[in-house]
């Protein structure tokens, strides 16, 4: 249950806010406060002044060389926090490292420096005189247009496996908008010489980036015009994703994207992909409302077992419902695709950033300035800790020519898991159009005709009819029980079946 009285603010157990039936369910994950708007000085307090308190509107996080947590905040500061992993929120110390930045939305350690993205540039912050505060604010990358629109955000940088620094650029919206100018809605890398090298187009609010364990770079965008629901893109050179509002930059020197035809409109999404060869489908779609609304960040779990059985998987943060989803990906015909699952909810504010700690706990940075969130605090920093007990969950969902294979975190009860009636599946897609979001369309049932449990009880092979390439396949494994008669933490899984494997 969610209790956030002053006496209990340090501990907040994960609850499933949106499902009354699951209230009170024990969870192996616990959310702990480090700092939220309950702290003495709130960002919207009339008493607040720059430097007179910490408005922890966390918008970028990374660990410093000496093990402190660097946190960029939206009002333009970078703070260094010591002791966040100690478990005692009142022992955490805060040191202002940098200030005066223009809405930094990303932070990354690079040697002895911290890199931040501002609206206008990537900036290298360094303390050269050892007083604990940055005295160098050097321009480390630029080259995109800044028109002055409120939404002209810059996200990143994040490093891929080859050492490239990736940033993504929000589309302009509202006053001063100019999406015909350079590279709005694009992502690219910042070269060592500080130049922006465009790589991929077709994004809207590509708010969070991260690379997987193989070193490939991914990015989460948000639903809106042309984007039916939160997508996760595999960023690479020459890709065009969904939103064409910034496509005019394809005519600029250096563009790796050149659309071979007109962007289709008002057609079911699979038709759009077939009509435009450059259109790269998102590796995974997160269905609207079912997994929140506006995806904001992603992080790959590399906790060496210290965060439960999900190493290598991706966690995706979400703003409006203040929740975190879990994503499994596999490669089919050389392209990433996979499944998304509900995971954590009940955070204090709209989640903006995720970061794993060296101890395997998950840091969650939040701010809901500008939009509404189910978590009603103005901002905050929380930490998710695993208690060591294994949740009963569908860990992986893999596509096959004739269905799917589920991999569970615990052995299943053979009777229920082997009964095709324990599962139901349907598939759907969206309308690809300039309208804001889209309903699920062309929904059809996918009869599950057989369920075969592996000898070790950890895998179930489902034979499924009516698989459709490029549709989201939504599974409900309501009837499956674990060997200990336990129910799944969430019976839902959403597989983005861009390609049907040949097996």
């Amino acid at each position, binding site marked *: *249950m*969610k209790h*956030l*009285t002053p006496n209990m603010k340090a501990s907040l157990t994960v609850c499933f*806010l*949106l*499902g*009354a039936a699951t*209230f009170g369910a024990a969870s192996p994950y616990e959310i702990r406060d480090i700092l939220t708007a*309950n702290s003495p000085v*709130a960002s*919207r307090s*009339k008493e607040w*002044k*720059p430097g007179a308190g910490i408005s922890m509107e966390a918008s970028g996080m990374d660990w410093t060389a000496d093990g402190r947590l660097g946190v960029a905040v*939206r009002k*333009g500061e970078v703070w260094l926090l010591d002791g966040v992993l100690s478990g005692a929120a009142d022992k955490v110390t805060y040191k202002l490292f940098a*200030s*005066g*930045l*223009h809405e930094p939305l990303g932070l990354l350690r690079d040697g002895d420096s911290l890199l931040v993205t*501002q*609206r*206008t*540039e990537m*900036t*290298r912050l360094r303390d050269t*005189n050892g007083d604990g505060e940055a*005295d*160098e*604010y*050097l*321009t480390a990358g630029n080259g995109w247009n*800044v*028109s*002055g629109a*409120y939404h002209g955000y810059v996200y990143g940088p994040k490093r891929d496996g080859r050492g490239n620094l990736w940033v993504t650029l929000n589309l302009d*919206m*509202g*006053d*001063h908008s100019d999406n015909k100018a350079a590279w709005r809605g694009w992502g690219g890398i910042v070269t060592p010489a500080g130049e922006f090298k465009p790589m991929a187009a077709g994004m809207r609010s590509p708010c969070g980036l991260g690379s997987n364990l193989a070193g490939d770079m991914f990015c989460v965008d948000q639903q*809106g*015009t042309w984007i039916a629901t939160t997508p996760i893109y595999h960023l690479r050179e020459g890709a065009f994703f969904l939103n064409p509002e910034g496509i005019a930059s394809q005519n600029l020197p250096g563009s790796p994207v050149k659309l071979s035809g007109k962007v289709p409109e*008002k057609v079911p999404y699979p038709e759009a992909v077939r009509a435009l060869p450059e259109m790269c489908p998102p590796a995974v779609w997160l269905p609207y*409302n079912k997994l929140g609304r506006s995806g904001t960040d992603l992080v790959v779990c590399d906790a060496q077992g210290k965060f439960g059985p999900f190493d290598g998987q991706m966690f995706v943060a979400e703003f*409006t*419902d203040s929740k975190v989803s879990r994503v499994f990906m596999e490669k089919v015909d050389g392209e990433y695709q996979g499944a998304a699952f509900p995971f954590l909810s009940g955070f204090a504010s709209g989640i903006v950033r995720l970061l794993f700690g060296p101890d395997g706990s998950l840091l969650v940075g939040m701010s*809901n*300035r*500008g*939009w*509404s*969130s*189910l978590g*009603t605090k*103005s901002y905050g920093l929380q930490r998710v800790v695993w208690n060591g007990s294994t949740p009963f969950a569908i860990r992986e969902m893999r596509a096959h020519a004739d269905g799917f294979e589920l991999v569970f975190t615990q052995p299943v009860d053979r009777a229920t898991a082997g009964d095709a009636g324990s599962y139901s599946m349907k598939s759907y897609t969206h309308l690809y159009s*300039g*309208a*804001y*979001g889209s309903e699920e369309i062309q929904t059809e049932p996918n009869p599950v005709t057989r369920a075969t449990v592996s000898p070790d009880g950890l895998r179930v092979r489902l034979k499924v009819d009516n698989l459709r390439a490029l549709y989201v396949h939504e599974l409900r494994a309501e009837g499956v029980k674990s060997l200990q008669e336990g129910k799944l933490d969430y019976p839902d899984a959403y597989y983005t079946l861009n390609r049907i494997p040949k097996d």
Partner: protein
Amino acid sequence: MNIPNVSDVVDGVRLRLRASSVLTLASLLIGLPGLVLHAEPLVPGFERFHAAEPSVPGGRLLYNELGCVNCHGGDDGLPKRRGPELAGITQRIQGDWLRAFLSDPAAVRAGTVMPHLLSGQKPGEVESVLQYLATLKSKPEPKTTRDVNVERGRELFHTVGCVACHTPDKTFQPPEGAPKASDFSYPSVPFPRLGEKYVLTSLAEFLRDPLRLRPDGRMPRIEMEETDRFDLAGYLLELSSSDPKAAPKLNPFVGDVSLVASGKQTVASARCASCHGLPEEVAVQPVPLRQMDGGCLAEAPTPGVPRYGLSGAQRSALKHFLNSREIPVAEAQTARLSLEALNCLACHERDGSGGPDAGRRAYFQGDHNLGDTGRYAPPLTGIGRKLQPEWFAKVLSGEARVRPYLHTKMPVYGGATDAMPTLFGRVDAKAEPTLPGGDDTAGRKLLGTQGGVNCITCHRWGAHASLGIQALDLSNIGQRLQPGWFREYLINPAGYRPGTLMPSFWPGGHAANQEILGGDTDRQIASIYSFAKSANGEPEGFPSAASGEFELLPKTHPVVLRTFMEKVGTHAILVGFPQGSHLAYDGKAGRPSLAWQGKFFDAYTTWFSRFAPFEKPLGQHVVVWPQAAPEPGVRFEGYRLDEKRVPVFLLNVGGVRVSDRFEAVEGGLVRSVVWDPARLKNFSITHPDGVAVTEHPDSTPGARRFNYSWK
């Protein structure tokens, strides 16, 4: 002459023919097989909801909308459908157009519900009717006129809501692109050749208040400025010049008193007064309905019987209605058909039906920040239990508008909507749970951001802009909404409006905020309602722009802040000094842009405004550096804070480092520009107007130092 291809005509997209005569147009259309340019009268609500199969409601709608009821009586529940006022008609409409229209209404104005009455058995009949009408004078039309901006008129036509009913121009590109012909699920009301009917002043005057001449509300009033009306009229008349003097004039109507008497007789015998407001001398008595077939319903009505050109579907629906109607009718049907009669459902959905179809959706624009709720009108589902009846009446009369972000404007329908608040109140009523008493203090806290559920993050409150997206004003919910509906909405906003950005803070009835009122859902909602109704104060958490609470005060060391600033640009780096002189540096061009004295800067807008206006310095005596084109070889490389925490700006000039440092002293600024003179011979340094510039005596090439003192 342009010959329209079939798709031009049937796709619901505007037909812009320049046919040389009415007859040519009519014969052209008849000559195209399978082509239907609304030869039948067009009642959008019927075509959209009832044309597929005959039904009593469909027939009832037609019985009202075609004016059957005006002659035959028998239904008084729906908003009266009337013809336009005829007094003064020859003073505002071209005589030739009137002649053609009276000779065959549907041939001139496809889809008109005016039946063909003067079927030509008496020569000179049309002219004599006109001569009689010309004797019915009204107040002269105003002579005011204005310049015309046709392009603006075109934009208005396609955005303020005209195309909810009327045919859009297919060459107009809404932001998402023009819809496909197949996206239009029912026909629009066309008005071809408007230029032969109206002149600029008479059309602009008509648009000022259509209800004056057409009181039945089928053409409602959209409140517009005079300039909007002229631009719109100029666009509709396809004027080629912005000069109103160049616009065609009304041809004087030549009277002929010898025809007036016979015209009067024809007006009486054709029963014009059943639908039109006319003098007592031509008044008519109702015609009792004795037969349910033949007459006006005959496929080929006999001469002297009104000829509507009904389609098969319309004829079947009317017959079905006349033979099977229930008396008395259910009020729910009256409510529904009232919405269809006034075409409310072109914009609004009710109970899952209606709302703009795929073709028309593209023309609804608004605030993209609010998603679909920022561009489409709200549903009318349960409207009678949603709005307080007094507020409902104010919405209909145009007094109350709460969604300024919708570009499509809610029009005013006059007396046609008078019955709606009570009618819908009865139809939509259901047993509502009573809310417990509210606690105003708790309500205020819940609305705010200091431990509440942050309503004001997205919602306006009276004159206060919200902190984020500008969703509708909550300060009037106590006057506007009924409490039972409010409770139901807050628990599940998407249940009323799928796709709303509004989350539930009481999902499944469980309060997300457990701290206020013990997490009691009903008491929390009642408290928000009662606080709003009390109009006693505002929620906590609005930062005040005017109070200077976000003024940055350099006290002990310089304060640096990046923002967007006028005369500096998007890469402005502001430096405020405790000594009271301040600087804005252009981090793109690599040069200083502004300096000023007094107060430094208020960061309120930088941090809180979504409109991101370019900022201004807070102080005075602003001086500006010359705004020449940026030096091509100069690259900005950031800044270093020195031991006094003064930023030293770093420039790369052709591979040579130049540093540019400003520091405030009493009464001004000291500027030091340093580079290696061995590698860079000359570096051009400019100074602002409005300060006295003196170069320091120690200044050398490669280490130049200037004093700027305000005069």
